[in-house]
């Protein structure tokens, strides 16, 4: 029962060090509060906001790990604040709570994630192939005919709640600041889910390789490590897309045989804009 857990982690006072500041300056500020059993980091931050720091900026919405608003770095690791229990963090030290680093800071724990939306805008949306086969791919009522095996593969990626923590932890963006050359794991995965849609009619490989910059990913898997939805971003989306790009441009055997992937799909017009941070 839940009671046993509470005894093991008896609530009591805890210290939090929360990043306060903006782009120009800032520091970790320490707060102390009484905790309740089962409290998550977001509860603590909101309690501090209510009682000690009314101007503390924090973004949240669902408080149910479903909307992906409350991403922050807790004890140095990207986490959803609403899904991280205080009693799962070491009690002997203060808990640090900082904003994501891959995006410009607005204030305190809130960052400007609008770059992600600009990237998304560059990705050609799902476009059903023309001439879908009646009775095989689409029925008389206009409903798609798709097998569960195909939806299973796509739906893993569609679990994404756009918390952007994978983007935050990806060193291509975080350390190298290549926001203008790499779309980041979240959008590699978005493109993978479109490319793996059996009825999609767009050939996205050029975009994924060129503007998307898939070659910049060195499959170091930090995105997979932090994903709160447990999506195997690297293994199931990025590596398969890298392999598809190999099919298209690197594989000497396929070249010899004149085999190209994504036959019957049309190339989208080249993108006009480079999303910049």
């Amino acid at each position: 029962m839940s009671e046993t857990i509470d005894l093991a982690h008896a609530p009591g006072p805890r210290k939090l060090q929360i990043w306060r500041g903006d782009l120009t300056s800032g520091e970790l500020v320490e707060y102390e509060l009484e905790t309740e059993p089962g409290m998550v980091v977001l509860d603590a931050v909101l309690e501090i906001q209510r009682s000690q720091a009314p101007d503390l900026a924090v973004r949240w919405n669902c408080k149910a790990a479903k909307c992906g608003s409350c991403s922050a770095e807790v004890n140095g690791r990207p986490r959803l604040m609403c899904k991280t229990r205080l009693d799962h963090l070491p009690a002997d030290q203060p808990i640090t709570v900082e904003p994501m680093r891959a995006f410009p800071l607005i204030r305190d724990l809130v960052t400007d994630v609008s770059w992600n939306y600009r990237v998304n805008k560059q990705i050609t949306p799902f476009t059903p192939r023309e001439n879908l086969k009646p009775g095989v791919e689409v029925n008389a009522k206009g409903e798609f005919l798709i097998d569960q095996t195909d939806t299973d593969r796509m739906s893993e990626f569609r679990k994404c709640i756009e918390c952007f923590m994978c983007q935050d932890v990806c060193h291509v963006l975080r350390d190298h600041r290549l926001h203008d050359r790499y779309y980041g794991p979240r959008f590699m995965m978005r493109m993978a889910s479109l490319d793996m849609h059996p009825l999609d009619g767009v050939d996205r490989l050029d975009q994924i390789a060129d503007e998307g910059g898939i070659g910049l990913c060195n499959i170091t898997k930090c995105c997979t490590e932090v994903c709160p939805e447990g999506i195997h971003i690297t293994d199931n989306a990025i590596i398969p897309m890298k392999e598809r790009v190999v099919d298209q441009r690197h594989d000497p055997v396929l070249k010899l045989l004149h085999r190209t992937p994504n036959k019957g799909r049309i190339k989208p017009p080249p993108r006009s804009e480079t999303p910049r941070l």
Partner: protein
Amino acid sequence: MSDGGIEHHDYDVLVLGSGGSGLRAAIAAAEAGARTGLVCKSLLGKAHTVMAEGGLAASLGNVAPEDNWATHFQDTMFGGKYLNNWRMAELHAKEAPDRARELEHWGAVFDRTPQRTMSQRAFGGHTYKRLVHIGDRTGLEMIRTLHDKTVHSDVEVFMETTITRLIKDGERVVGCFGYRRQTGELIAFAAKALVLATGGSGRIYKITSNSQDCTGDGYALAFEAGAQLVDMEFVQFHPTGMVYPPGVAGLLVTEAVRGEGGILRNKDGERFMERYDPKRMELSTRDVVARSIYTEVKEGRGTPHGGAYLDVSHLDPDYVKRKLPSMYDQFLELAGVDITKEPMQVGPTCHYFMGGVKVDPDTGATRVPGLFATGEASGGMNGANRLGGNSLGDILVFGRRAGEGAAATANASGAVSLPAEAVADARAEIEGFLHGSGTENPFHMHRELQKIMGDGVGIFRDEEGLTEAIGKLEELDARVANLRAPSDRLDYNPGLQLCREVRNMLTVSHMIARAALLREESRGAHSRLDHTGYSDYWGEHNIIVEGTGAHDMSLTPTPVVKRDELEELVEARKEAEKAS
């Protein structure tokens, strides 16, 4: 364009809200050729709709070929205890299948039948297996699909922008006013037509499944602009929310848990639903199950944390993990409970507002020219009680209709402009929250409000409790003018945000409490301890709320809006019910 420090924008159609209904409305308006803007308090893709789990009700007949719109219509009417707007229930039942297919064409991916069509699952109150779904995250799938569609339509999106006022020119709504949350910059929109898609108001209760967005802004804004609201007394309490630990109290435990065979027990191990609804047991309608759990707890048979046990540990653990993945995670992560081994503790949680702005079913138009409403912000479709799955259909069907209705109005209208005094007034309100002389702390007042509503206007109501609650709400009325944000900074100021929200919530609370006091019967989600049965009179009447402010709020019973051609279907259902 900027004017006196106020950023200014002009649109044909402006949609407030980026939930399913707002996005669908914006897409429709843009497709109809209107220059369309979309404003939301949160980031795009994070609106409350994202939390919906179970599915979208549409009579596709993929799993049950005998299903059709008429049965769906009848189920909706029966669920709503015949207080629904008939036309809305009809349109919803007829159009939901097209809206579901359309989502697929826009890239949504739903679970399949062996015949490779969209699969459908059973839910309380639906005669057939009807809910299109994907795992237990259907809302996310919808939001992401609509979000991507919107991003690639000609819709301009203003994220993290809060609207605090609708602006009228004479009788007509011509725009709105608010501020950008990130910077505190003021912003004004002129729009030939404005669609409210602002969702519900769950945050007036402490225990709620709703997200932070849900503060009833649309209800209050529409009311202040002169629109009518309907059915506000009907607040759906979902029977199963988490009760423990305190931080997550209210978090939804999806109905699918019971659908998959979960059993409810009290602290003595008794399967108490046998006493309340022996026929349908755990799968009785939401109002009945919620009241049953509440009664068990009240009579001292609750669990240590004040709920009931909901148990799936008799099911195969792998099955539970496959069918209810996010429930398994949620309890393991947040409560330290492995639901495949131990029972959950659950209790009722505020979930959905059946009531809302009264609209024309076909176009979403309110009685105020230029103002439209849709989704949970509008009322009428669900009557006294909503069936699970009907909201996701509702927001698509009526989102599209409102978007088209607004575009038609905009296309037929000349240019509009914002009267300067109204803008100045709206600006003064925000500046008052920041720099005024008020002393009331919005965080504290929000808590007080939640307590009043929880104590007096909860699941069970009676005259004494309601009157007392209204009295206390009136005390808050006097203080609400004194609200001031504890900090006067402009950028991302949570206190500023809450000031206006608390005002909105207070207005909404008044509507609920007063309508609940007026409706002297128990029906659907509204249960009066002092009037336990159905009343013939109230069975034929909706309560309309209107006025010019919280101090002058008038409530008028009005006959239910029927339709002759549907009479037969409704009568048939009533007969069938009597027979069983």
